């Protein structure tokens, strides 16, 4: 499984990844303005001033977040990279599928065996269930279009499929000047992440975000501060979200057969009783 390792301690905040993503996927730009000055959003984004655009959207698939934190008594920026986490470690096991893949009624979202979670435009019916299910709030919708689509990062699956040597890695990872974003096999990246944590314990917060969250994701994050300070969703369960519905979805055939038999039984018994009573009353009337 291919994965990405994002080490925010190496990040400069240059946003080359944001630009590369827009370039490769041909995404439109968004008109933005300085966040803390926007009254409705001022309180929420006060400590995240340079973040632009304010949030992921149908036109912005990856976003560099600026988070003001206090480290060693000094105020610093710690950068986070918001994008699809490409959850799930097993493309075959339906119980390990990401929440978005499990919820789509027409199989428009698919967990590929290479790792990325991709989306088939022609199948989507726009029900937005995937948006509700995703714990990272990733799938975004084209609210302003008459024929809207769900949009999100695809880990540049088309580059991977084209297979041109040296150009299979995602655009953001290729563009990153400090190798804060590294792309490769998940096991290798996980080992590398553990090594970094052990060798420089003071530099990192001792946790790999994505190692176990929702069953493991194909995007791993390292950071110098706790991840809640980077506004990454916290308190996520360690099991894939698919296990919550798997029982409910196995039940229908049993319900169908069981309830049918039950109803047949009830109907037959009641009918017999009613007819027996009718015959009885008729018999007693004739007598």
């Amino acid at each position, binding site marked *: 499984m291919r994965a990405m390792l994002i080490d925010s301690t190496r990040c400069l905040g240059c946003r080359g990844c944001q630009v590369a993503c827009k370039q490769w996927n041909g995404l439109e730009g968004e008109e933005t303005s300085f966040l803390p000055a926007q009254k409705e959003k001022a309180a929420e984004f006060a400590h995240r001033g340079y973040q632009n655009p304010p949030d992921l959207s149908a036109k912005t698939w990856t976003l560099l977040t600026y988070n003001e934190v206090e480290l060693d008594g000094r105020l610093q920026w710690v950068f986070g990279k918001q994008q699809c986490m490409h959850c799930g470690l097993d493309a075959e096991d339906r119980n390990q599928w990401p929440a978005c893949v499990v919820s789509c009624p027409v199989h428009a979202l698919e967990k590929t065996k290479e790792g990325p979670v991709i989306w088939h435009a022609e199948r989507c019916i726009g029900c937005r269930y995937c948006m509700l299910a995703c714990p990272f709030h990733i799938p975004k919708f084209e609210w302003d279009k008459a024929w809207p689509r769900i949009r999100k990062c695809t880990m540049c699956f088309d580059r991977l499929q084209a297979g041109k040597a040296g150009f299979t890695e995602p655009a953001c990872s290729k563009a990153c000047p400090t190798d804060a974003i590294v792309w490769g096999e998940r096991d290798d990246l996980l080992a590398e992440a553990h090594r970094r944590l052990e*060798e420089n*314990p*003071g530099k990192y917060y*001792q946790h790999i975000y994505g190692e176990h969250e929702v069953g493991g994701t194909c995007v791993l994050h390292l950071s110098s501060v706790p991840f809640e300070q980077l506004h990454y969703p916290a308190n996520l369960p360690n099991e894939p979200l698919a296990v919550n519905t798997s029982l409910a979805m196995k039940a229908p055939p049993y319900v169908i057969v069981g309830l049918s038999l039950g109803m047949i039984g009830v109907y037959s018994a009641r009918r017999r009783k009613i007819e027996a009573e009718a015959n009885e009353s008729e018999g007693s009337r004739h007598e």
Partner: protein
Amino acid sequence: MSGTFLKVMINSLLVVNTVLVVFVCNMVFSLNRKVEALGTVATKSDLIAMAAPSIELASEGQCTRCHTARRFAGVPLDEEHRSALLRQHARTGNVPDSEIEKIRASLTIFGYGQYLTRDMLQRMALMTDGERMEVLLGIPEMTLEQARKVLTSYKMLLRL
């Protein structure tokens, strides 16, 4: 109709009341359980109070009973000599085996007495392993392996 009105009101309030009683009992029970579980968790000051004497014991309390601090500080601190001395202690000094390990650990720590002062050792009691490693790796000429050994020794001494 006021009789019926009252009846309906009382009945519905009864239902709400039952629900409230169930909820409050449930909360009281769970809170009780949580408070009882709290008893076994030490506070920060407990930890500091317990850590300090433990370190003292291994480094000074026992050793200076038999020989002076100066003699103790003059002990050569490479592995071979240390092991030999410790074996001697076991044979002649009536030092129980469990204490031998503690002495070994405290000698390891003592080697870095310049950097790992008493004050530092006490502060390290409340740190996570990562933070402790950071402190140890900050000592000049410390290797990763050696730091791991010091950490193990330190944790042994901390054992309450």
